């Protein structure tokens, strides 16, 4: 049986716990989580989000909200695992040493975030690859599930059924 703590892998999870990673909810109230998503999304979705600054900010906000809705619809076990992942990204110590991001999320440079995503994507630790994949899946779904993303990709949306 797999427990939450085993998910990311022993030593890393231990670090998160040392850093105070008790359970908390990823939700509208989770201001830090929103900041994390708002920092990562423009990098993960670079080239997909609109370039115009105001439109881009709105799109990032859409991704954050889309993710919140999606996470709220997940089973409790998966939500707990995501909380743990966001715990690692949130606590300065683990953000620094597990994700390799020096600056607080709102200040992190795109390059730094690209390096973080790439290092998890190709990590030798399967659980970190899984964590990258979870971010990839949630953010891609949040953006491409949104009608605003469709024109750019040549998708006219669902047909009209009479």
């Amino acid at each position: 049986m797999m427990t939450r703590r085993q998910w990311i892998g022993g030593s890393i999870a231990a670090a998160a716990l040392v850093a105070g990673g008790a359970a908390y909810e990823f939700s509208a109230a989770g201001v830090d989580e929103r900041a994390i998503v708002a920092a990562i999304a423009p990098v993960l979705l670079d080239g997909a989000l609109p370039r115009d600054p105001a439109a881009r900010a709105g799109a990032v906000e859409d991704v954050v909200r889309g993710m919140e809705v999606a996470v709220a619809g997940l089973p409790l076990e998966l939500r707990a695992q995501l909380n743990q992942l966001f715990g690692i990204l949130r606590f300065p110590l683990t953000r620094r040493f597990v994700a390799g991001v020096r600056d607080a999320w709102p200040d992190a440079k795109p390059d730094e975030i690209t390096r973080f995503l790439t290092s998890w994507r190709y990590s030798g630790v399967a659980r970190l690859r899984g964590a990258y994949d979870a971010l990839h899946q949630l953010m891609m779904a949040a953006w491409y599930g949104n009608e605003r993303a469709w024109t750019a990709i040549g998708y006219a949306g669902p047909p009209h059924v009479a």
Partner: protein
Amino acid sequence: MIRDFVREGVEGGWDVRDLSRIDRDAHVAADVAIVGTGAGGGTAAEILAKSGLRVVLIEEGPLRTSTDFRMREREAYPQLYQESAARKTADKGITILQGRSVGGSTTVNWTSSFRTPSDTLAFWRERYGLRTFDEAQLAPWFAMMERRLQIHPWQEAPNANNSALRDGAAKLGIPSKVIPRNVDGCRNLGYCGMGCPTNAKQSMLVTTIPAALRHGAVLLTRARAERFSFDGTRIGELTVRALQSDGIAPSTHTVTIRARHYVLAAGAIGSPAVLLRSGLPDPYRLVGKRTFLHPVVLSLAVMPQPVNGFSGAPQSIYSDHFMQTQPIDAAIGYKLEVPPVHPVLAATTLVGFGDTHARIMNDLAYGQVIIALLRDGFHAESAGGSVALNGDGTPVLDYPMTPYVWEGARRALLTMAEIQFAAGAKAVLPMHEDAQPYESFPAAREAIARFPMEILRTRVVSAHVMGGCAMGNDVRESVVDEYGAHHHAENLTVFDGSVFPTSVGANPQLSIYGISARNASHLAQRLTGKTAAPIA
């Protein structure tokens, strides 16, 4: 306007009860309680109800009908799929698509309908002693379900995504065929995976379940079967947990079901989970073991002309060539098909991020995707996965990808790239984190040969979960007998995809319909003393 006759039926008095609305515990009595309303549960419900038995159906998910099917991924996945279509194996290496509303996976499946392949049946007879599993004995049951569900080879032209598979394969001398589909009046829209908005797809939601409800069956929704009580020989009752209106969190209320007989049809993963929670005898620790996935690897091609893979019947062409190039228990075989290409499914499956990902997404309309379904379970190094329970009682599947399976995955990536170039692809991107778009087959071949084949590097998905309550005549290696009867609890049978002792080696729905129809008819006769009436 499309008539939503299921909703009309409910408004007209079918007995459907949404347990998220109950405010106290309750009891329900029936002749037969069926857990799960998918391929197995739906088929059994119609047969048993028409045989005059009082049936109660228990479904964890909600009732959603054609009016709700708005063809938007963002709405469909959370409402209609297990874990919002984000269910994964324990190590997160494989994404598993399974349905979770009335009709189960049949409400969201892609309508491909194949009888169980004869080489699979031969293997089951020889290796597992399933004597009655020969083509001639099963043929009438498959034929009955083909009539019931309007299964015919697809008559219209395949969409461009499917025709590229046919044309590319033909250039290489690889034969392909037209897929039979369970549709009636299909408008060729391509949204089967989000629930058919026109009721053309002959899923359980619009066929067998309405028929059972018309015959007085009771349907409980947002109702999670938790556990059976067992007195050493028989099941006494079934405890059902009401879910809250979000459909996820358990409420404090339970419904106790007392029935003469219990049918487990919660699907692979779901059915073993109920057995594990119930602690029924399992002396050889077989429950949940040998769970198979037909692990799927994918290849994306950018074509010179639009493909519009989001439009048109999602699957209409297949090739079994690579299932037949070697014996069934030698190197792993694979079936070739294509998937629908909708934005969320594509974007989440497409490897990479940032600009490279966005550039390919911008060409979505030109994207052609082939999938290879690996036939697992026929070799000692393909023993499948095993289901365990999380702390809260929900199931999780551990499925180790073995070198044997990876070898087939690599071969399949090569095959798909070769077919796509033969079909005229400008570039091919195998779904692997180390891949780039390749502009020629030699370039792709050289790269694929060197890919590290490991989880979360090679994209692996599955929409076919099978096994975990294997049929067999030897109690030391099976959970139920060849009619689905549990080896230890005399009033329990299993009718769903969990009973297969290996994978099917073809998209499983018709195998489940046919075998469940036979076994449910057998059960009806046992319970009523009369021959079950055919349902078509």
